């Protein structure tokens, strides 16, 4: 299997505190990688470093076999779609106008806008100002903008935030189709084990900035037959952190 992402000794320090410590992440082509960890474990920081939004204190990021640095940054980002923290949008513009801005920066045909709006089922509300959007609609718009260029790699940070149960279900099903349908590789982060369990094929578990487990999700199930997945996860992340 092709490695899409490889980080070596990835570290981020804010002052004296480690947010991410010596992280070696491997993400393989055409797979869904679930990035799991309690709140504040360093998930967002790691994903930001992958995207060049934060610079590592130490360590390297390679994406598509290219080193993430100021020279390769633009080449890499052409093939990456992302939704980090909360969805980004200009609230005085409509959904379609927001996507138009991104489409021109990404050099993708205007037809893509209609396509992604349909995928996230916002095509009916595309001419509404985003200021009037509900949290769930904003989240869908965020996903639409990440999908806009049909990138090889999709990085989604807590994509089900703010969605209602039906929306969560829908988002989950959508993400599961992406590798097969568009040949994408997907990283999806979450603090909910149940969610990752239903989507991911591979899993990375992070706690206090350190990678506690990385590998196929099935293998995690096998680790200790006597325990539930929940219990294994709690063992790995430290019991004091409640989910």
């Amino acid at each position, binding site marked *: 299997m092709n490695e899409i992402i490889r980080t070596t000794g990835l570290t981020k320090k804010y002052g004296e505190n480690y947010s991410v410590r010596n992280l070696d992440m491997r993400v393989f082509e055409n797979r869904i990688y679930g990035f799991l960890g309690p709140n504040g474990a360093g998930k967002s920081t790691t994903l*930001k470093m992958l*995207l*060049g*939004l*934060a*610079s590592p204190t130490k360590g390297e990021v390679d994406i598509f076999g290219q080193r993430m640095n*100021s020279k390769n940054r*633009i*080449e890499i*980002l*052409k093939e*990456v779609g*992302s939704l*980090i*923290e*909360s*969805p*980004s*949008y*200009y*609230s*005085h*513009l409509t959904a379609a*106008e927001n996507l*138009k*801005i*991104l489409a*021109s*920066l*990404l*050099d993708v045909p205007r037809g893509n806008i209609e396509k992604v709006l349909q995928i996230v089922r916002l095509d009916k509300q595309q001419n509404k100002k985003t200021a009037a959007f509900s949290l769930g609609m904003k989240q869908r718009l965020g996903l639409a*903008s990440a999908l806009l260029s049909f990138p090889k790699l999709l990085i989604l940070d807590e994509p089900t935030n703010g969605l209602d149960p039906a929306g969560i279900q829908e988002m989950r099903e959508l993400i599961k189709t992406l590798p097969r349908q568009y040949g994408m590789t997907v990283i999806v982060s979450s603090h909910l084990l149940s969610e990752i369990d239903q989507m991911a094929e591979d899993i990375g578990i992070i706690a206090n900035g350190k990678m506690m487990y990385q590998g196929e999700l099935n293998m995690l199930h096998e680790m200790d037959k006597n325990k539930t997945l929940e219990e294994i996860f709690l063992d790995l992340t430290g019991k004091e952190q409640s989910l």
Partner: protein
Amino acid sequence: MIFKLLKAERMKLKRAPVWLAFFIMPIIPALLGTINYLGNIEILQSEWYSLWTQHTLFTCYFFLPIMLGVYCAYIMRIEYNNHNWNKILTMPVSRNLIFISKLITVSFMVLISEIWIGALFVISGTAVGMSAPPYGSIVVWCLFGTLGGMVMASIQLMLSLFIKSFALPIGIAFAGGLSGLLFLAKGFGHIWPYSLMAYGMNSNSPQRMIESGYTGFVVVCVVFIAFFTIISSVILSKRDV
């Protein structure tokens, strides 16, 4: 790549009629300055030149700096709101060009304002019965005013880039405009960034040519613009979002 970014900037400003403010603002001094000119016609004898001072004095020192400050703050503010930096900085475009495209966008507005100020000047002068407007000088004043305004725009964009607050950079623009008047009076108008617009527009003494010469003025402006652009680009590329 820069054209993509400029297009994106233009689209972002849709539904935000900032231009309206820049359209209304010069009308006030044109109208009131002309009335004032008529009221003091015995004291002010150099016709077009006196009228120019009436039109542009407050504009250069108080109002255009603040308006530019607001515009720059607004342009940066929409990126700070709703996590837009996250998106913009993961687009496959050069980070240096992001700042430059914003600077060009603001500069374009400065140019339009200057043209509008020039046009209002000719209209109101003709309306009060003066003949033969000094077109040559007007063009030079407006172009140099634009260049000086670009210096101010580059500082203000830089300030709004690293000061998250909306009002603070505008307060600085206001103080900057005042300092511009002070430095110009002390004879440093040709090297102080906040004086350059007023200096270029010759709003105090329109009859005199710029003492440092046209080339000198252009060089100073270009150096300032380059300086603030480079600093801002470095901030933008080094910064964690």
